[in-house]
């Protein structure tokens, strides 16, 4: 062993000869686009566009109906069968409305903002694998527009540009509520994108790639919702914050900002923001499906039928759509049941809880993965007829002990807090103890304020006791 190698080992803590144990596979996309001519990509882009538009039409009706049910009323049921065409009618009405530009608006940016928001919403879906390889017009091609070695990062980057639409809309409207809405939105998306990216890092560590097709392929035996369960919870919280939906819709809270960044918008330009919001919901749901729920793969029981016939060809679209709509239903459910959080509470949750906790989780996952891949020694121990690697057992034990300890400390503090809050008020109260008259709590006995008036022996001594 040369001096340089030894120094490197000492400094990094990773034995150099063990580097060969890392999976020798590539992190490039699994999807094979070699049999996809350019016109077929255009057809696929068009199909994705139509899929998203139809889904949006449907989900707005779905949302109103489900929320109606949750609030003991029917919801829209007049236009078309079951009210299915209500969204179409609303869209037509919106297009025929007058398009108003405020006098104080910055005209170019005011028109640009909805365009940015709407176009960026569509871009991310290009890398979502909707199904496995299929035959399409005589070509064998994956049901995915394109894939990159960094596909998931692309979704985050495009979301970051989409926020420009909201921020610029708020600024260019030239009035106060939209400006505050735009500012809130930019702060919100930037802070929640950090936690979201960190949550996804655990999935990258497990799959060894950032390409969506590779991640789906890596989940063929185990969906990442199990090993990366904590990441899943954090991702679901951040995806609601990222799409400005209740209970995190602070950028457009009606009660506070009369609509927020889109207060001044009307007609087609407002419709674009509306469309962008729903397509963003579909994008984050599709990403959650791809990252944690095995993408287009059939659920475990069904996947085993007839040696996996439901896991091939066009069946993928069905499973993908079902999983996607589970998330959409979750969005609607949240909106129907939770009130809006306060802005400072929302920011505190993001910066002081989600980001540090997810950071700790990523470090834990890194150790678990390192142990699995054999970086921390490859001795095994036999237990109930199976071989378990020692390093993994030790790491999991340490993490479990730490988590248990943290929970124990936290619960002790919570119990103290509850005990402090539920302590009964003192039996006697001097209403003038603090210098101001204070009414007694139910069941409390009043101490007469002055011995000269009441003649009671020693209320002065009680003053200190009853304070606070």
């Amino acid at each position, binding site marked *: 062993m040369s001096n340089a190698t030894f120094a490197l080992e000492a400094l990094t803590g990773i034995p150099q000869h063990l580097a060969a144990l890392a999976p020798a596979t590539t992190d490039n996309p699994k999807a094979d686009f070699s049999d996809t001519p350019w016109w077929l990509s255009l057809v696929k882009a068009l199909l994705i566009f139509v899929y998203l538009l139809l889904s949006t039409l449907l989900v707005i009706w779905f949302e109103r109906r489900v929320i109606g049910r949750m609030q003991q009323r029917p919801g829209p049921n007049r236009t078309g069968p079951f009210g299915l065409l209500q969204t179409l009618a609303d869209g037509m009405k919106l297009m025929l409305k007058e398009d108003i530009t405020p006098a104080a608006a910055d005209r170019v940016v005011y028109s640009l903002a909805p365009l940015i928001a709407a176009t960026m919403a569509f871009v991310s879906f290009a890398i979502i694998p909707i199904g496995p390889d299929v035959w399409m017009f005589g070509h064998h091609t994956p049901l995915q527009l394109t894939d990159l070695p960094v596909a998931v990062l692309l979704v985050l980057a495009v979301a970051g540009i989409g926020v420009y639409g909201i921020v610029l809309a708020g600024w260019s409207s030239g009035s106060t509520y939209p400006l505050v809405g735009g*500012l809130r939105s930019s*702060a919100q998306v930037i802070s929640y994108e950090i936690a979201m990216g960190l949550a996804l890092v655990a999935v990258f560590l497990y799959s060894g790639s950032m390409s969506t097709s590779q991640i789906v392929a890596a989940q063929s035996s185990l969906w990442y919702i199990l090993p990366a369960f904590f990441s899943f919870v954090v991702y679901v919280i951040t995806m609601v914050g990222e799409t400005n939906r209740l209970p995190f819709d602070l950028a457009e809270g009606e009660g506070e900002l009369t609509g927020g960044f889109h207060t001044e918008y009307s007609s087609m330009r407002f419709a674009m923001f509306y469309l962008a919001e729903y397509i963003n919901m579909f994008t984050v749901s599709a990403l959650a499906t791809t990252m944690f729920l095995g993408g287009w793969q059939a659920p475990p029981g069904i996947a085993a039928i007839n040696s996996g016939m439901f896991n091939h060809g066009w069946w993928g679209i069905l499973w993908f759509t079902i999983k996607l709509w589970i998330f959409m239903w979750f969005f609607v459910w949240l909106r129907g049941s939770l009130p809006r959080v306060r802005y400072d509470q929302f920011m505190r949750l993001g910066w002081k809880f989600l980001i540090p906790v997810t950071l700790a989780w990523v470090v834990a996952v890194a150790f678990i993965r390192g142990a699995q891949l054999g970086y921390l020694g490859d001795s095994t121990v036999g237990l109930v007829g199976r071989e378990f690697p020692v390093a993994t057992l030790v790491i999991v034990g340490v993490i479990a002990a730490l988590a248990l300890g943290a929970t124990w400390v936290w619960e002790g503090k919570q119990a103290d807090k509850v005990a402090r809050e539920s302590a009964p008020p003192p039996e006697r109260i001097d209403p003038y103890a603090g210098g101001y008259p204070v009414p007694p709590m139910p069941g409390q006995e009043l101490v007469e304020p002055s011995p000269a008036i009441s003649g009671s022996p020693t209320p002065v001594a009680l003053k200190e006791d009853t304070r606070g």
Partner: protein
Amino acid sequence: MTGLGEQILFWVLGPISVVAALGLLFAKKAVHAAICVALVMVNLGIFYLAEQAPFLGVIQIFVYTGAVMMLFLFVVMLIGVDSSDSLVETLRGQRWAALLLALGLAVLIFTAVGTVTFGPMQGLDDVNNGAGNVSTLASLIFGQYVWAFEITSALLITAAMGAMVLAHRERLGQRPGQRVWAERRVRSGRNVAGLPAPGVYARSNAVDTPALLPDGTPSELSVSRVLVAREQVTTPVPYITSAEDVEGEIEEGYER
């Protein structure tokens, strides 16, 4: 050789980048300049993507456009909705000096770049098709250059902490709360019930209209100091006269 698609991409996005970069220099409003910079950064990211560096390209867009420029925009928006650059020269001859220096720099850069000779194009195909773009980059950053990487990150964190410490101002003494203010008012015996509220009239209800004292004169204490400093206080006279007119009409009606 560069492919046809790459050439088209370059000749479409290149001019857009140049125009956007010039927009940064010549835009009057700070927000327009920020949008131009964001556009330049997105174009840079696309160029990186075209140069077979997908990780670098996407990170360029993600970090610089999505986070750094967004924070810039955030600050610019907070400073003022309509703040334009002032064109008054604070240092005499500053513009000419800047122009001269810029010219000198341009000559330096162009002569330096002009003498560069490029070797045969290698491309990144071998690297990208082997272990993959991201893995290769990662093994370089966390293998060969791990110390440079760690030291840079330590420096950046130190810089961020330093900026926070420098910008943070410690409060001297306790901030007076509602209770302290109330006690202070009671002790001094002035405005014990708080300052008077601004005027509410039959036809107006606004913070910029002073209330009337019992003798009919407007109370200066009832309007905010900020509005007084900005000279945005209106006079209550029209509301009083209109109210008096109505009273007069009512009395006339009684007399009839």
